[in-house]
């Protein structure tokens, strides 16, 4: 009888420990575009997160990281429906995503109401962190943070005086163009035209013709998805507008554009100048370790893009918050708010009072050379 009693107590203790182990989970919803024209964001994002999970062996400080990927298709409607389902079924402590600004804006108020942290690593729109949300954090530089160096350096370093803004008709495109215009005009530059385009535009010859007819244009800030940027650059080269086609205008781009664009655009990419936040050739140990691990997992010929790196960093930040004692959404929010110079591949993260990353120390300019390699500019 005594033995039975002892066994019963042992069983209860084991069950209690088991239940506790089961409870020690950080549930992470990942909303990414896995279908539609922006789906390369989702594929690359998943690669980055999977790599981080491998390295963490799926847990931190005794907490299992439970990740659930969902397709939000870069679409506000689909993202809204998906986040509601994720909240209902997964009951996440944190949601990573979306990549596209319009979709990120759509889910922000829903997560705010549910008091679940949203960690964003790919949206540009100012509204995401300027709308007073308390649960939104972003490690991607916003339109203003990118527009300031782009607009100012276009005027001062490049010597540009006239610009034509080319951007997709989304919150991201508009905010990026606004950011450039504000600082370029403030420096003394003149905007000759603002040309927007939908994501369904396939042929850019007419746009290139219009720009060629505007006369001398010094700089063409361009904000769009990779595929459209490739075709746009080729059309501009064909119209002899940009350097890659024998013209004089310089195309300028933002962090948005992934590594690999140059190879796809070919000769048309020559002379393209852009700011980068993630540079696979950067010497910091964390970057080189990431590149090495990425190649080991996905193939020696692969070069990680900023999308891979940003997604990888989101998981590192969640892990760091858990290491610092976060156990639920409220405490993750609290730890994020207190982050100071947490080193990741895309910089050293400190969030401002609005949840926006404030450190831009690793951002630098590069120019595409004739052989399509990158040359760092000392701007």
């Amino acid at each position: 009888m005594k033995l039975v009693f002892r066994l019963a107590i042992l069983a209860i203790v084991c069950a209690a420990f088991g239940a506790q182990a089961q409870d020690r989970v950080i549930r992470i919803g990942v909303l990414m575009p896995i279908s539609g024209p922006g789906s390369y964001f989702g594929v690359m994002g998943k690669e980055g997160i999977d790599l981080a999970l491998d390295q963490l062996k799926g847990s931190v400080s005794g907490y299992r990281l439970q990740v659930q990927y969902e397709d939000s298709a870069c679409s506000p409607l689909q993202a809204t429906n998906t986040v509601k389902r994720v909240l209902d079924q997964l009951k996440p402590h944190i949601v990573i995503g979306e990549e596209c600004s319009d979709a990120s804006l759509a889910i922000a108020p829903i997560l705010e109401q549910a008091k679940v942290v949203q960690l964003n690593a790919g949206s540009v729109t100012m509204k995401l962190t300027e709308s007073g949300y308390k649960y939104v954090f972003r490690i991607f530089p916003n339109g203003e943070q990118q527009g300031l160096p782009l607009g100012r350096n276009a005027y001062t370093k490049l010597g540009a005086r006239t610009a034509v803004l080319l951007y997709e008709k989304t919150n991201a495109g508009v905010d990026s163009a606004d950011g450039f215009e504000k600082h370029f005009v403030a420096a003394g530059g003149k905007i000759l035209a603002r040309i927007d385009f939908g994501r369904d535009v396939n042929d850019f010859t007419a746009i290139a013709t219009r720009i060629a007819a505007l006369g001398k244009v010094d700089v063409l800030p361009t904000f769009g998805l990779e595929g459209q940027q490739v075709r746009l650059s080729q059309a501009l080269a064909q119209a002899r507008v940009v350097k890659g086609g024998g013209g004089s205008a310089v195309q300028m781009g933002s962090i948005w554009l992934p590594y690999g664009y140059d190879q796809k655009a070919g000769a048309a990419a020559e002379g393209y100048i852009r700011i980068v936040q993630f540079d696979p050739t950067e010497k910091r140990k964390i970057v080189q370790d990431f590149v090495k691990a990425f190649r080991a997992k996905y193939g020696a010929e692969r070069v990680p893009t900023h999308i891979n790196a940003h997604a990888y960093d989101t998981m590192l930040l969640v892990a760091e918050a858990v290491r610092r004692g976060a156990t639920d959404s409220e405490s993750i929010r609290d730890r994020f708010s207190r982050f100071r110079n947490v080193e990741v591949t895309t910089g050293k993260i400190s969030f401002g009072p609005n949840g926006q990353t404030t450190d831009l120390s690793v951002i630098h300019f590069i120019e595409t050379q004739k052989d399509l390699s990158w040359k760092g500019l000392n701007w």
Partner: protein
Amino acid sequence: MNDLLALVVQQSVNGVYLGCLYVMVALGLTLIYGVLNQINFAHADFVTVGAFAAFFTATRFATKVLGLPDTGAYLLSMVAALGVGALLGLAVNAAVFAPLRRGDELRPLIATIGVSVLIENGQLALFGPIPYQFDSPFSRETIRIGRIFFSAQSVLVVAVSAAAIAALYAFMRFTFLGKALRAVAQDRETAGLMGINPNLVIALTIIIASALAGMAGALLGPVVVLTPFTGASLIVKAFAIVIIGGFGNVQGTIIAGILVGIIEAFTVQYLGSGLIDLVVFVLLLVMLVLRPTGLIAERKEENV
């Protein structure tokens, strides 16, 4: 040539080229409607399949296995895309369209949406979402006549479109099968009583339309952003063209396609590229109100 004239000529050239691309996509769509009275929502996905078939033939098989030069590889890829399109049409007709044709008209219509989703997601699983860079030797060459420029690819697009239209016209007018096809379009039952096998003719129509879609894909691949969703960005415009031209009317589709291409080019120049869809669909609404039969309204048997 003064600046304004040069600009007008250049945008007209851009528009005609763009219009020919649209015509190539819309031609098969209107052909199927003309004969079957059926809308094929999966048609633009057949175009994407053709583009991928051409891409892999040109960049993998023709150059690496057969050792062909770039030009030969691309021309072979066009033939391959034509063949893959035809085979896809044959398979989809046998598996989906033919069995559903016996019921009401709505079922095949819904089925085409299902086929579209299936093809898009199948391609997504096979090829992934990252845009493919498909350049032909013609897309890299720019031809300049005075101040006017265009790519060799655009000349190819216009030439192949014209050849395809001429071949289709000759087939319809001067061959027995073409006459049979028109007879089925006019009256399926009576054509059957005259010894024509309507099912065979319908299958042939779908195969021809799909082959044209495959060919369009080979031409479009080096021009557009090639992803599994390329077709989805074209289908709405293709439908607008078919409606403006007169549903099922091949001549109307050709005129409407080129008209829409030119309108797009001048919209970009004078109003802004963000207003392209607005202008095209206002034109569509105006056509539906003022001339619901489309630009060219003929008797049904004359349509195809």
